[in-house]
């Protein structure tokens, strides 16, 4: 290629950035929701104020976009108060922390908690802690299942106030995984095509400008 100007270099730079974002940096990822079979579920005992529900899980990817759990309560009564949610690593270091109001939770329905592309170490064990901060009435219960999940390997222990609950923990995780080989190739080739095409447009414009400067006729 001929000597390029600043704009052309910028385009090629953005093109390369885009390619890197696809792979290997993997900023751009695809969502993968863990599907759950509909099954018979049980609920834990009441969670009085200060109670903590803990579930361990293995990071199946390095980016967690959201997770969902099921909270059970009496919908006929008011749901007032705040939950605290935290995610901790195997060294009990808090890597995610948030609050959400009780009234936002729909009874016995998957409730989604956004983690906004939280970076984890793939394969490591983490746990989340759901704490009843100040709910004193219409106390919540957490749903879980006694049967093994189809992909039960990802699900670890669960505890309510340090008491282990017999059964399989029940939560849905939404991971973001890197694109597969063909997707990467298609995206790279498209980005490359767009980048080199724009480079060529600028090249033609540059040549035209040079010709005009030289005072050529019939540009």
């Amino acid at each position, binding site marked *: 290629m001929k000597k390029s100007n600043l704009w052309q270099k910028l385009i090629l730079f953005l093109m390369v950035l885009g390619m890197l974002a696809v792979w290997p940096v993997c900023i751009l990822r695809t969502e993968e929701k863990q599907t759950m079979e509909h099954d018979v579920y049980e609920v834990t005992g009441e969670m009085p104020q200060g109670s903590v529900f803990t579930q361990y899980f293995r990071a199946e990817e390095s980016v967690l976009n959201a997770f969902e759990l099921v909270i059970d309560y009496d919908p006929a009564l008011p749901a007032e108060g705040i939950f605290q949610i935290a995610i901790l690593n195997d060294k009990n270091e808090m890597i995610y922390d948030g609050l959400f109001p009780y009234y936002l939770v729909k009874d016995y329905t998957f409730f989604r908690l956004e983690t906004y592309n939280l970076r984890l170490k793939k394969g490591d064990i983490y746990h989340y802690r759901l704490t009843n901060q100040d709910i004193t009435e219409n106390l919540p219960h957490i749903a879980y299942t006694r049967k093994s999940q189809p992909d039960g390997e990802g699900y670890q222990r669960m505890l309510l106030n340090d008491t282990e609950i017999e059964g399989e923990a029940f939560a849905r995780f939404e991971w973001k995984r890197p694109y597969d080989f063909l997707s990467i190739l298609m995206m790279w080739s498209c980005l490359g095509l767009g980048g080199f*095409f724009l480079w060529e447009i600028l090249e033609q414009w540059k040549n035209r400008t040079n010709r005009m400067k030289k005072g050529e006729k019939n540009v």
Partner: protein
Amino acid sequence: MGQKEKKFRLQDFGIWFLVLLCTLVLITLCFDEGLDYDEAYSWHTTYRNSFAGVWQAILDDHDTDIPLWYWCLKVWVAIFGESWFVYKLFSVMGTLATMILGATAVRRIWGNKTAVLFIISVSLSPALLHNSVNVRMYSWTVFLITACGVLVYWMSDRTRKLWMWILLGFLTVVGLFCHYFTAFCYLFLYLFLLIRVFLQNKKESCKVIACGVIALIPFLIWLIIFDFFHLVGGGAAPGVSKTELKEIFQYLFETEVEYSVLLGTGVFAVAIAGVVLLGKKFEKWEKYFVLMSLVMTPLIFGVMGYVSSVSYHFFTPRHVLHSAGLMWLGIAIVLSRINVMSYLCGLLFVGSMGASAYEKSYHVEYETTPYMAETKALIAERMEPGDIIIFNAETSFGLVYDYYLREQQLVHVSQVNLEELAGKPVWFLDATGKHLSEEQLKGWELAYEQIDGIYGFRQSDNNTFFQVYKLDIKEPKE
């Protein structure tokens, strides 16, 4: 042998090897025996009818088909034998013809780079790959329209001889008699030729009109016989088609890759932008031809959507496929002109898109028929010619069942008359749980013997798998 000659021979070998490779890739998708509804219709129309019967069947069905492709399929099967592989091979031959066009005419006019990109995209791009192994006429209409387009471009640039007009007319008639909606593609191609010839030699432009009219006459006669515009039959049009333009791009570019439609549309957009903004890289009329090839598909979508609404014919995205070969030719020409890196990226794109499309088609061909082997074994071992088969899937899916149960007699559950079936060997294929009504059962006793296992043909929305029962029909003792 000189260096130049060696290089040419190597390029020759390379191009033809690519054609062979793409053909073999398509053939690998031809070994299963799962039929979709349209394929069952093709088989049924061809197998169950004589040549004259095909004509009458098409008239009765009031579809968008015309008999020629069915007649050709009948001849093909008569030569090579009655097997589903042979049926599928007929579609592969259509795409092979387009690839040969790429290796010869396209290569001669636009060069090796364009030919390579064209050959890969017309064989392995999502919609064209699927239709290359689907027993319908689309792989052949793609060839006919593309061949006509290349001929029109080539003719417009030189002294036109009689044999060129005859060939053009022939390709037009054959295409029109394979599928109605090729007419719109020919309209644009003839318009291009007319304008070009008119500007070169006004007197000769009447030859374009004459060729078009002569080719159109048999088609118009057919439209009148078929009552395409309801001049005789009357009846209200069903309303404008609900198909949207984005569905067309979805059909042309979608694979398992996320954003594949967006990426494919992006490449399409680059091609249009390329021919507009880099006009100096093309000769004047070459630019117009490429632009026409690219915009033909979305333009035809608009025209066909309207025509199908006033002529009482359904319209699906597949009906714009006829111009897809020309669209890819346009993309190939542009991408090979931008610069070397753009071409390589374009090559990588069609290659990876083709790999993803193959993955999807492989799943459709081979992984949607998990119970095929045991179903065919059951039919072969337990069912006799003349046995009655009651089924409760949608009535139209009787055509699919007919392929596998061609020696048996199919009856839809809603049309069962137990009096006629008493004493005969009767089977029941239960796909939906719908059984005989109380009215049908009045006065009769039915004993069901369930055959162990799950059975089925190709997995599809309303025609999935079924349980098989042997029925014993008894008139109760008074």
